[in-house]
């Protein structure tokens, strides 16, 4: 079955509250889509709509050439990995993985073969007899993955599957999921609030904000060409720095008026340079507040004099400045992003 997922004007509301607003999207077969956004942006609801765990209020949902808008969850041939894994506590690892197959009436030896294959892939073979409570967090997560894998679904749905793991395990598992998805080529939709996961896993990213799609595109597209201030601030860590410039300030600092109204200028932390003396162009006088040394990079937080803005600057080398120093922050013109102050929409020059 073709596993292209098509969303047509998909909308979800609870009573009067609109949770998702008219989403149009086509997810190609084998594509890895990551949905990001702050808590409460509707990303979990989005996933649950695809899964069939929530009913669609308006619009249509197609899988291949089949309209599945009102198909019950069990007939959609999708598998989901839950944030808390939702393993059946009274069943062994084997039975947890086999349950879906048993219900669908697979033959005993077929079930065994599939479960063992998945267990092999996920390094679970020696744990098949254990109960979930005898497993570590990472192992449970893998069982949850296995339960989804054995079904050979047309679509994988991931609901923040890594958020209960510690940092190191999260990275390992992230890489594993990535490799697995590439190898199996199963269409996947992955919901997270972690932007590292989003950037590294996604073929295409969807940024959701308050139920609206802010932007859809490849991670680098979103990074380099954010269409709104929200996307710009959400993607990248530390977040993009913003400062508002009046028309006069624009003339003074940018050499020309970008707009006939005040604009919001956005500059990524890695695009700043420290200067000891001011120079023409976009140059701000600031005092260094704090320096975070991460080993491979340094983050310098400094306050722009005469405003409340705090800017972060990312440096590859140990900075020559120290806390309390007054310095100039300089950014080249081609690294700047401009946004409309009221609507937050990007202004392209």
């Amino acid at each position: 079955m073709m596993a292209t997922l098509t969303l047509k004007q998909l909308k979800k509301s609870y009573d009067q509250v609109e949770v998702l607003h008219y989403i149009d999207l086509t997810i190609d077969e084998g594509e890895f889509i990551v949905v990001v956004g702050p808590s409460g942006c509707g990303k979990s609801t989005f996933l649950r709509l695809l899964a069939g765990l929530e009913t669609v209020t308006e619009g249509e949902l197609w899988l291949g050439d089949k309209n599945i808008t009102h198909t019950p969850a069990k007939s959609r041939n999708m598998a989901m990995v839950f944030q808390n894994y939702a393993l059946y506590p009274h069943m062994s690892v084997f039975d947890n993985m086999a349950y879906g197959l048993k219900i669908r009436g697979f033959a005993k030896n077929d079930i065994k073969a599939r479960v063992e294959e998945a267990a092999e892939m996920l390094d679970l073979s020696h744990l098949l007899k254990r109960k979930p409570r005898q497993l570590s967090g990472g192992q449970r997560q893998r069982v949850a993955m296995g339960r989804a894998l054995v079904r050979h679904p047309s679509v994988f749905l991931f609901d923040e599957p890594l958020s209960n793991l510690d940092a190191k395990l999260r990275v390992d598992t992230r890489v594993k999921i990535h490799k697995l998805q590439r190898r199996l080529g199963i269409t996947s939709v992955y919901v997270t609030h972690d932007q590292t996961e989003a950037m590294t896993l996604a073929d295409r990213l969807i940024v959701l904000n308050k139920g609206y799609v802010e932007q859809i595109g490849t991670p680098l597209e979103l990074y380099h060409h954010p269409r709104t201030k929200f996307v710009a601030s959400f993607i990248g860590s530390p977040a993009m720095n913003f400062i508002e410039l009046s028309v006069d300030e624009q003339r003074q600092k940018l050499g020309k008026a970008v707009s006939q109204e005040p604009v919001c200028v956005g500059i990524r932390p890695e695009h700043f340079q420290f200067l000891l003396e001011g120079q023409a162009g976009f140059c701000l006088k600031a005092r260094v507040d704090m320096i975070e040394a991460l080993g491979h990079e340094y983050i310098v937080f400094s306050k722009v004099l005469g405003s409340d803005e705090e800017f972060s600057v990312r440096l590859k080398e140990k900075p020559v400045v120290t806390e309390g120093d007054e310095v100039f922050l300089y950014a080249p013109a081609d690294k700047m992003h401009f946004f409309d102050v009221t609507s937050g929409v990007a202004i392209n020059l």
Partner: protein
Amino acid sequence: MKSSRASQYATHALLIIGLLVLLLPIYFAFVASTHSVKALLTAPIPFWPGHHFLSNYATVLFHGVKTLGGEPVWHLLWNSFWMAFFIAAGKVVVSLLSAFALVYFRFPLRTLGFWLIFLTLMLPVQVRIVPTFQVVAQLGMLNHFSGLCLPLIASATATFLFRQFFMTMPRELCEAAKMDGAGPMRFFWDIVLPLSKTNIAALFVIMFVYGWNQYLWPLIATSSANMSTVVMGIQKLALAADQVPSWDLIMATAILALIVPVCVMLIMQRWFVKGLVDTEK
């Protein structure tokens, strides 16, 4: 937590005193059941078991006593056991299903339904006993097991407890089962039921004792001697008119009436205790 030696002694002393307070009446009942009536009616009451153990128990168990309509107590125990069993089992089944419906399904007037069930908690059996009797009589279920058990198998308490338990189970469990292709009853059977095992055991024991101790309802719903229960039997024995109550036989019956619930309790104890203290899910 480490406790000092002194506090350990104190704890044990308290436990032993409590045990004595609880066991002494039972011990005296047992002693009384091993003497002849005569010995019991002369002061002082005997403190040690007598020689009539076998004859007293054989009389009540197998031969029957005249005031009981000659019904042997084993038959009363048999009746009591099945009544208690059906009441307990019925209560568990009915309340499991209704709690399942209340928690996992959305239907009109769901909350109202829950509150109505909850409200009946406040109505004791005695309040609705007359209308219940009328219904049971009109259905022709008097002097029959169905009449004894059916009116008692709905339980608001049990429904409420199961509801609370189901609500502590993560919602994702239900959703995972849905994604795995399980329908509602499949989910109930494969997931909910095994996870409620300990709760079921605990409730079963409590409800079995409740059923076993039923007195008023069996007294009203049955009139023939071969349907009477052991609790009724004790009362009938004590009511012997124009003669000295045979306390030895009464006590023997009481001891026998004690044994069955204790056995059920012992058999279910492992799960029962787990059900009351366990939080593992």
